[in-house]
């Protein structure tokens, strides 16, 4: 009797240990953050060659972007660099802490030109009508991708593990890693959004 109980317990234990090891490995693998501090110039230049749909919404990133492992969406280092650029390049003058101002909010569940990376990159690089300036002469294309990745996390409805946390500043809204768009959801005045672009 005891023998049987023991053998069952043993197999349960073995499975438990294996599962926990495997999940620990998986979690840690998910965490992997290789920090690419420098891309070879041709690789960086290739980031400029994404294709945009003719209406300026959505499109496909360059092939090399996938080959690099989509480094601007899930990599904590690039996202935090993007957050610095957001402050350094005065994005807050129009977009505030992400809740908008002169420019549109990122937290209201509505992306005028869609939530895809390429749309955001295109918006930053080339500018958009109604006041969004082009940053192609002020940021390198790598920085634009970093910034775009960060902007995407501000309004994301499923906060990324890699999303930045708060700054050592005055607190104005929950940080990106807590999903401010979920906590502060605010549709805004109805009718502000032109009828285009998918919601996230």
């Amino acid at each position, binding site marked *: 009797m005891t023998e049987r109980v023991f053998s069952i317990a043993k197999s349960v234990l073995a499975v438990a240990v294996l599962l926990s090891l495997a999940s*620990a490995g998986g979690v840690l*693998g998910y*965490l*992997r953050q290789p920090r690419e501090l420098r891309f070879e110039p041709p690789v960086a230049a290739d980031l400029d060659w994404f294709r945009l749909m003719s209406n300026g919404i959505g499109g496909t990133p360059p092939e090399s972007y996938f080959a690099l492992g989509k480094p601007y969406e899930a990599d904590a280092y690039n996202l*935090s660099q993007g957050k610095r650029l957001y402050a350094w390049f005065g994005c807050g003058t129009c977009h505030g802490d992400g809740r908008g101002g002169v420019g549109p909010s990122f937290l209201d569940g509505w992306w005028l030109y869609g939530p895809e990376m390429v749309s955001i990159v295109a918006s930053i690089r080339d500018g958009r009508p109604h006041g969004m300036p082009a940053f192609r002469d002020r940021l390198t294309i790598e920085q634009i991708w970093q910034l775009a990745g960060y902007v995407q996390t501000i309004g994301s409805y499923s906060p990324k593990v*890699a999303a930045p946390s708060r700054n050592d500043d005055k607190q104005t809204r929950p940080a990106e*890693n807590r999903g401010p768009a979920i906590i502060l959801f605010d549709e805004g005045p109805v009718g502000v959004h032109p009828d285009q672009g998918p919601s996230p």
Partner: protein
Amino acid sequence: MTSRNAGALRDTAFDAAEIDRRLAAIWSTTPGVWGALATVDHKVIGRRYITTAFVFLALGGLLSLLMRLQLAQPEARFIGPDRYNQLFTMHGTNMMFLFAVPVMQAMAVYLVPLMVGTRNIAFPRLNAFSYWMYLAGGLLLWIAFVLDTGPDVGWFAYVPLSGPQYAAGKRADIWAQMITFTEVSALAVAVEIVVTVFKHRAPGMSLDRIPLFVWSMLVTSFVVILAMPAIMVASTALILDRLVETHFFNPAEGGDVLLWQHLFWFFGHPEVYIIFLPAVGMVSTIVATFTRRPVFGYLAMVMALIATGILAFGLWVHHMFVAGLPRLGESFFTASSMAIAVPAGLQIFCWLATIWAGRPIFTTPFLFAIGFIVTFVIGGLTGVMVASVPFDTQVHDTYFVVAHFHYVLVGGAVFPLLGALYYWFPKLTGRLMSETRGRWVFGLIFVGFNLTFFPMHILGLQGMPRRIYTYQPEMPWSGLNMFISLSAVILAGGFLLFFIDVIRSARTGAVASSNPWEASTLEWATSSPPPPYNFARLPVVGGLDPLSDRRDVLPVAAGLRVDRRELLVSSIVEATPEAREASSGDSIWPLLAAIATTATLIWSIFTPWAVVWGSIPIAIALIGWFWPKGVPEDES
């Protein structure tokens, strides 16, 4: 209840062979994987602890070799800044949290029950749990490092660099959570040791007959208990700042950057003594054995240990002399930091007096003890130097400090530890280590260490800051750096030879008798290695050196049961027997509890809800752990 006990089998009823047979049946760890996972034998766990700690020592040593490779030349491109920052953070974190503190506690887990003459440590299951937690914390850190997610913020992880804004990703969280693992483990072991020393001493081992190593571990354990909560508070605050946006360290919202430093060093300075005090005990034991006389000034030594333990809490600000605190406060901490040199000096003088009056036998452990005095005095004196505020403004955060704390920690703790391992190896394994190889090991390590670290004093005074991954060719540092890197090879060679010696001796070393050194403490009263129950009959102590008068007959106590794990509870001061007490049997629950805790702690790096959900399996495991199983150990 008493009636059930009255029918119990006692050792008074049997002859020696039969007692051994019955005790072995009761106390032995079940063979096989299950037994290995469920064991609560302090010797098995202690050996495991020691082995694991030495594996971490070897890994940490490899990291330092990589750093020396990078620093051998100016502007070397061998390792980039991102990896280098991980390297030195891992080296410091690993050596402090995964090697130095655990290895000292591990030696105590193995030795203290033997030295106080009992059969197992107090709370044996907690002991098993401590080991699993320690192992999990170590694995977490090292797996993260291998995956390029190792912490890169320095081993004292100053905010804001380790805070939410500047340490992207989970690297700093892994560091902070690894702290939780090792501190839980260290605190638990400290409790076990305190209670073992207080309540499990052999009859007659009054306070003034406790061996110095045991005293040192008792004081160390109290320092652990009072110091480690500070780092747990700090690391928890850091994780909260990073995960749920608390503002402990955010000056813009009323937090403070220096709060981290205060909390960290309130733990961090006592940490040095947590590592050093056990070494004092080891040196005292080795010196006593190999000078063939008791240590000079037993009472003075004990007082010095206690004084050091208390003063350890009054020094933390000397790590913050250049942070811009008020001058008056700094002056107080200069005085207290200088003052701690007095008990340290007293200990040195007592050892010198012991050697003077004794008859030295130059075995390998004794050589390490001598090497300890030579190097530790340098580390202590440079400690006096950095205690001075003006002096410190020039050497703080330079290689001078790197040299200083390696002299204190390697000279002051690792040398005694290696000596202790040569000394107690027969008790750990039943075999002696090689005296010939031992002398080579000592020579290589002693020479290699001094050649490696002494020049760092000069580099520091020449203006080389610590934690730089490279330096420019026009700085006058390249010659010494190359010299240091080459010397590090000698040091590494010494350690390599040490590990070879350990492995070879464990297999083929000369078989040791129960007391090969003719030492006088109780662990030598039983066989090498001891049986699972340590002592067939518990020894009775009549003096400070129970084995020293070379009596033929060891006084023992009889009357313990042989049909359950039973040992003795004695009073704190006089160690008069108070009760026979059961000692827990093997159990898998500590491991299950450790797995549940590990899962919760790792998960909580990602979401605060892990604490809520994770507490359920932890609670289940703890209930399973403590629920009575109707075994004889539960009788009373």
